[in-house]
């Protein structure tokens, strides 16, 4: 490194060579980083697989619950994806709206303050959100919202069943997860919205678009793939979020569609956190195996995100 600095300081004569030298260093560094990531990932996968395998193949009668692994992990997978999707459904529109407000509507000072506050939100440990969820949000919703939903909207499967009085429901957990993933989606969306070329915005305005029409015509299509990537990052985060869910959700075994009752499918991460301290032997292996399943799901979501984002970029949506 010092070598290259000295060389480049020597002046223009050797610039070509120095450039190549610097290129080589940088290429080496980035290749190294890439390999490191791959090795780490492979290591984690290997560990999960080795430790989890005995838990997958175990004879159900040896376990207390007498479930096969599939029976055991199924509700957890359902709960994990369900909670994450609820969080995404709440957070994504909000994040996009806030990002648009920051990038195109708010006066500069307001925008900067708001952006700063949202970034700050990302720095708060999720366990704090979990505590806030159980102490503040859950009672609030249990008193004011869930009974009403239960009385008036129970024809929708999501709001059927007896409304929770503790508020430790899937919806509460989803809302807290939404708060957890809001900053990342907002930050990424804001960045891509800000990068919309002025040229395209002006093209739209010059055609007689109102501000909102311009945003729909130029800003959102341009930022689409970025927003999707952000949303998928958020989804990944929600899938793996542990403490907030573990604190809030009152879990039961099985598949539950209603999001306002005390009976909820647990999520994989939260289940591991709750069960791990009191597990031993094959139970531990089984928990690790569920971790492997979560790993695969997250991987799948990311792959999907990349596909969607790539499809968005090649343009021309009919």
């Amino acid at each position: 490194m010092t070598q290259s600095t000295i060389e480049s300081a020597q002046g223009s004569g050797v610039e070509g060579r120095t450039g190549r030298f610097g290129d080589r260093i940088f290429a080496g560094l980035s290749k190294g980083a890439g390999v490191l990531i791959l090795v780490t990932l492979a290591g984690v996968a290997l560990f999960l697989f080795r430790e989890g395998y005995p838990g997958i193949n175990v004879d159900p009668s040896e376990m207390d619950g007498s479930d096969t692994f599939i029976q055991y992990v199924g509700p957890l997978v359902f709960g994990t994806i369900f909670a994450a999707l609820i969080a995404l459904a709440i957070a994504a529109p909000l994040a996009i709206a806030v990002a648009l407000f920051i990038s195109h509507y708010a006066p500069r000072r307001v925008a900067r303050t708001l952006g700063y506050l949202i970034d700050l939100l990302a720095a708060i440990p999720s366990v704090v959100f979990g505590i806030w969820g159980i102490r503040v949000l859950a009672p609030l919703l249990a008193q004011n919202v869930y009974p009403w939903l239960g009385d008036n909207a129970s024809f929708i499967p999501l709001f059927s069943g007896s409304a929770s009085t503790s508020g430790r429901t899937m919806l509460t957990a989803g809302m807290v997860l939404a708060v957890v993933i809001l900053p990342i989606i907002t930050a990424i969306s804001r960045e891509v919205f800000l990068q919309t070329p002025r040229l395209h915005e002006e093209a739209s305005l010059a055609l007689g678009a109102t501000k909102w029409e311009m945003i729909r015509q130029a800003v959102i299509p341009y930022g689409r793939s970025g927003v999707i990537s952000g949303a998928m990052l958020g989804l990944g985060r929600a899938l793996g979020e542990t403490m907030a869910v573990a604190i809030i959700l009152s879990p039961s075994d099985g598949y539950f569609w209603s999001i306002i009752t005390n009976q909820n499918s647990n999520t994989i991460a939260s289940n591991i956190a709750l069960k791990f301290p009191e597990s031993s032997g094959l139970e531990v292996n089984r928990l690790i195996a569920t971790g492997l399943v979560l790993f695969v799901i997250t991987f799948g979501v990311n792959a999907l995100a990349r596909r969607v984002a790539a499809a968005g970029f090649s343009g021309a949506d009919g």
Partner: protein
Amino acid sequence: MNDADQTTTTGSVTRMTEQMTGVGASETPDGLRVSDLNIYYGDFLAVRKVDMTIEPRSITALIGPSGCGKSTFLRSLNRMHEVIPGARVEGTVLLDGEDIYGPGVDPVIIRRKIGMVFQRPNPFPTMSIAENVLAGIRLNSKRLSKSAADDIVEKSLRGANLWDEVKNRLDQPGSGLSGGQQQRLCIARAIAVEPEVLLMDEPCSALDPISTMAVEALMLELKSEYTIVIVTHNMQQAARVSDRTAFFNIDGTGQPGYVVEMDLTEKIFSNPTEKATSDYVTGRFG
């Protein structure tokens, strides 16, 4: 034009006249009358005291050294200037007798009547060629039958001399075209909404000579229907296409630009009144 097409056109015209009670688009246009126009960026006076009449259905060229405010002036003609934070104008610009800066006049409506083509081609990258052409129409009238849309696409692309080159790939992204084709696509997009006036800011500066000729030929065709104002650094181009030419100048950096003189293009290029003009058009300019 088929029935659906007719309906759309009438629809958009109705919407415009609703908001801006004045001369309907169908009557003979009156051109643009600019009086006493000062144009500011914040506190900086960029262009001062412009008085200018832009004749309808003709081509008016704006020439002058870099930084003298040609783009600024052009953008103030369809209220694109005020898109820049802090930018504002004083004075009046009459379109068919109506002040586009009058109280209660919606800039959005003005921009639908006065279209604009930019220096760098800027088709929407995520839209297909056809969707690019329809971009302005979609703002005007949301519901558009497939056949009406197809008609508008074909008519506008033909109008922009681009139809034959793209008719087989209308559903492909507009960003896949060459620079010259992209610029003509932008012209097609601008004329698809049938504006009265078309403003062009150095539309050929990013184009090769062949594409430039194509765009120039197009301008000459379009002037039978549209009032065209073009900014150009190319004297030959101004001489070739325009009917009248306005020469802008600036006394020094930080000073406002102003119109030195405006006259028939022939006169400006052969026998201008002002010495500064003749220096500029003959290339004796510093």
